């Protein structure tokens, strides 16, 4: 199916004097605005479109049709867990009482909402094996910030002021070292062995009196479970450091094994991955954090507490948590996202959550097996895939000049979103593939057929791949020009 071609800018629909007047409030009838001092008033109107409601609706509907999305396409996007976003979650979050509730509303006008948040905290504790949970961080990287800030606060509270090194494995997400920097720490990389597990000797050499902690994803971004996680925990703890769990890959182990039981002290969870809230084209997310007992006093504010019987729910603040790292958000977090995650977890229940981990893993191992059968090379063929796995195209690249980027772009033509490409950095020409549990065998088989076609084209017609995509609204874009000749805003029609 060909997608529509270019849609002009909303500004190009604009006509002086047009407007969605039915949506505007009536004209003010008093001169209240006249109190604004003359020299502080706006003199020229901003360049905003003057369009009808239909103009705007049609324009943005057409733009939407230029997008891939879960609702229209399969996204085998490694480390991103692009699963189906159930509509009941959306319907519940859009109930008018929830939508209209002010963040600073008194708690007597929020017992229903706060009960949901409290129970969400409790369920997240149960599935991660942690002792406390705070829901306020607004995205995964924001949760990472909270986590590393708590690690720093812990060491500071123990008078341990020299610990400013955060260890990250080579294959870590970019947010991990960036977070270390945001928290005033130094990121120190540690090698990964040929089998994909952390090199314990390198780790022993890296830890010491400067170690604040280690940030790990398990299963790792290599798509394998870190088998010696207990030894890793032992080495880091013995050196006085703490263990941070990057929850990006939590989907792989949901209901099967818990970060708290592996020895982690702090974890962030991407509710927009594991708990199925929508990605919205780049957010909103939610990056709830969980902690072990020793980090409880440092959780970010605010947290929902349940008191008395019948229960009263209320926010805990600075007074109750004087050692907290503090506030990370204007209000209590991405409440609408939290409600969606809550509904999702209630629908799954304890059995449904186990099945998430199980079928995500089944799908990944099946897809990995099928793709290897048709001739693709797995980066870690000797290992079980977790919920994701890596293919390396180094052979095809050497023999036919076809790159991971070519394959990714050709997949778009064939109706599949591209897998994650060129990440992790230590595998050359790699595709990181995560099918998630919500895709059927038939969808996975169709993806295998598309990959088989690409393999044939690599032999017979590599030009077809270098030039891909051919069927989309645009072909490959000139990123160099985009960065060199910056065009970041519409400037109006030339006078």
């Amino acid at each position, binding site marked *: 199916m060909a997608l529509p071609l270019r849609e002009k800018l909303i500004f190009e629909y604009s006509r002086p004097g047009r407007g969605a007047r039915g949506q505007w409030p009536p004209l003010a009838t008093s001169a209240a605005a006249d109190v604004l001092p003359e020299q502080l008033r706006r003199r020229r109107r901003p360049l905003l479109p003057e369009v009808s409601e239909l103009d705007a609706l049609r324009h943005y509907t057409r733009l939407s049709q230029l997008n891939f999305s879960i609702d229209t396409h399969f996204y085998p996007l490694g480390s991103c867990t692009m699963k189906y976003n159930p509509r009941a979650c959306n319907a519940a979050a859009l109930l008018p009482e929830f939508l209209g509730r002010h963040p600073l509303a008194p708690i007597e006008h929020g017992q229903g909402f706060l009960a949901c948040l409290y129970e969400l905290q409790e369920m997240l504790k149960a599935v991660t094996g942690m002792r406390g949970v705070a829901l306020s961080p607004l995205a995964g990287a924001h949760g990472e910030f909270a986590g590393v800030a708590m690690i720093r606060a812990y060491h500071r509270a123990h008078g341990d002021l020299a610990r400013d090194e955060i260890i990250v494995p080579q294959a870590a997400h970019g947010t991990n070292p960036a977070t270390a920097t945001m928290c005033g720490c130094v990121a120190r990389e540690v090698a990964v062995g040929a089998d994909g597990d952390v090199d314990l000797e390198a780790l022993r050499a890296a830890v010491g009196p400067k170690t604040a902690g280690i940030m790990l994803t398990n299963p790792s971004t290599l798509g394998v479970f870190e088998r010696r996680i207990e030894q890793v925990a032992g080495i880091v703890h013995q050196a006085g450091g703490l263990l941070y769990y990057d929850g990006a890959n939590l989907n792989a182990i949901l209901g099967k094994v818990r970060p708290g039981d592996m020895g982690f002290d702090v974890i962030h969870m991407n509710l927009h991955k594991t708990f199925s809230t929508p990605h919205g084209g780049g957010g909103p997310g939610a990056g709830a954090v969980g902690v072990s007992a020793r980090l409880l006093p440092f959780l970010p504010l605010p947290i929902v507490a349940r008191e008395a019987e019948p229960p009263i729910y209320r926010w805990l603040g600075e007074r109750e948590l004087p050692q907290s790292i503090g506030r990370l958000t204007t209000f209590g977090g991405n409440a609408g996202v939290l409600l969606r995650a809550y509904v999702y977890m209630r629908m799954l229940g304890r059995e449904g959550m186990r099945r998430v981990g199980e079928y995500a893993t089944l799908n990944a191992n099946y897809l990995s097996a099928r793709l290897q059968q048709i001739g693709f090379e797995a980066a870690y063929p000797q290992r079980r895939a977790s919920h994701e796995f890596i293919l390396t195209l180094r052979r095809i690249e050497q023999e036919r000049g076809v790159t991971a980027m070519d394959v990714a772009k050709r997949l778009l033509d064939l109706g599949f979103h591209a897998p994650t490409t060129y990440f992790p950095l230590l595998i050359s020409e790699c595709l990181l593939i995560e099918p998630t549990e919500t895709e059927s065998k038939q969808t996975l088989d169709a993806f295998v057929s598309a990959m088989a076609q690409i393999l044939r084209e690599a032999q017979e017609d590599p030009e077809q791949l270098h030039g891909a995509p051919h069927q989309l609204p645009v072909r490959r874009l000139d990123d160099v020009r985009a960065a060199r000749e*910056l*065009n970041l805003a519409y400037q109006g029609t030339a006078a």
Partner: protein
Amino acid sequence: MPFIPHTDEDEREMLAAIGAPDIEALFDEIPANLRLQTLQDVPAGLSEFEVLQLMAARARADGRPLCFIGAGAYEHHIPAAVWSTISRGEFYSAYTPYQAEASQGTLQSIYEYQSMMASLTGMQVSNASLYDGATAVAEACLMAVRANRRSKAARILLPQSLHPHYRAVTLTTALNQGLMFDTLPYTREGGQLSFEALSAHDGQDFTALVIQQPNFFGVIEEVDALTDWAHAREALVIAVVNPTSLALLKPPGEWGAKGADIVVGEGQPLGCPLSSGGPYFGFMTTRMQHVRQMPGRIVGGTVDVDGRPGFSLTLQAREQHIRRAKATSNICTNQGLLMMAGTLYLALMGAEGLERVAASSMQHTEELVHALTAISGVRRVFARPVFHEAVLALDRPVAPVLSALAQRGIQGGLDLAGYYPELGPALLVCATETKSSADIQAYASALSEALRPARAA
């Protein structure tokens, strides 16, 4: 099985293709002692009907009170077309637009958003959103330290009249990176920044001055003089603004002789429901000369290999997935869908509609202040003009009064006791265009009743 499509036959065939006896075997690399047996603390699953009934009951318990609280989140009418459009699966369930060819809808929308925000704030470039207003202020402080090469101090001047939660988040975020902050007091008469207090910083090396317009009290600041004062001392100016107010107020790009350098704020008033505090979106705009110091995603226009125009994420060398430890920020996921809501909202409102929202909100706040201060024991605290919020003083502690109002389904404002105890019993109130004269009268009569018993006693 909720949301899992596998039939028994699918499962058998898949296990056969893998060569595994059962699903459990796929977890055989996980040490046995770590494997979880049950999740007994998680309740059993509910059907969609059951969960929606539960949620409806919880929502009903919260009710739909009449809200006169502002303090950083404002109840504005959201045109129906905003959420019906962005709830389309192609926006709602799309991923970050890294695959540009498959994401032109999101990318072009971001470009349009950037254009609108740059123009609204009077700046040249905008990013594609940050998390919220508070984190945007924190990021602006960190950005100012990178952008102001003349200052060695990493010291920021923060007004006490900046939203207290913005102050708190800025401290949580930036203290770990060694930034220092000085607090600037407000005047007790007008509620605006005190110029006298500024003079204490003459001759000091500082990186930036933060100016919130209108400030947390709703008060209009003398932004021109403040901006010129900071620029004369080679400091940058970080403007924190309410986007609705910019329909009427001078955009930060025109403050003083040279204009503010970084502009941030809370995007919620532009099409985002109150929703207990989120999701909202933070915005950030700046001058072209600082674009490489800006955090967050940025979209640029370019062409494809055939010369057709298109859009892609650009200047990615600033970001964590490329620069890792040297990135401008660790931000990755931001508030894409809410930024889309803001774009739709601004497209439907246009400059004229936004002016009407702002002017109507000012009118209703004036009416509200007038009606409430007519009650004995209630007076206005600050004399300076306000936008759509004002601080009122009561003749007795605020908390019990607010509780009494809450009983009647009225949220009477924010008690400032925990934030500004020096003001005595004080209340921050707000009325936007959504409050009718009848609503305002309802509040006034409830307040006058709430204040009556004590006077009789």
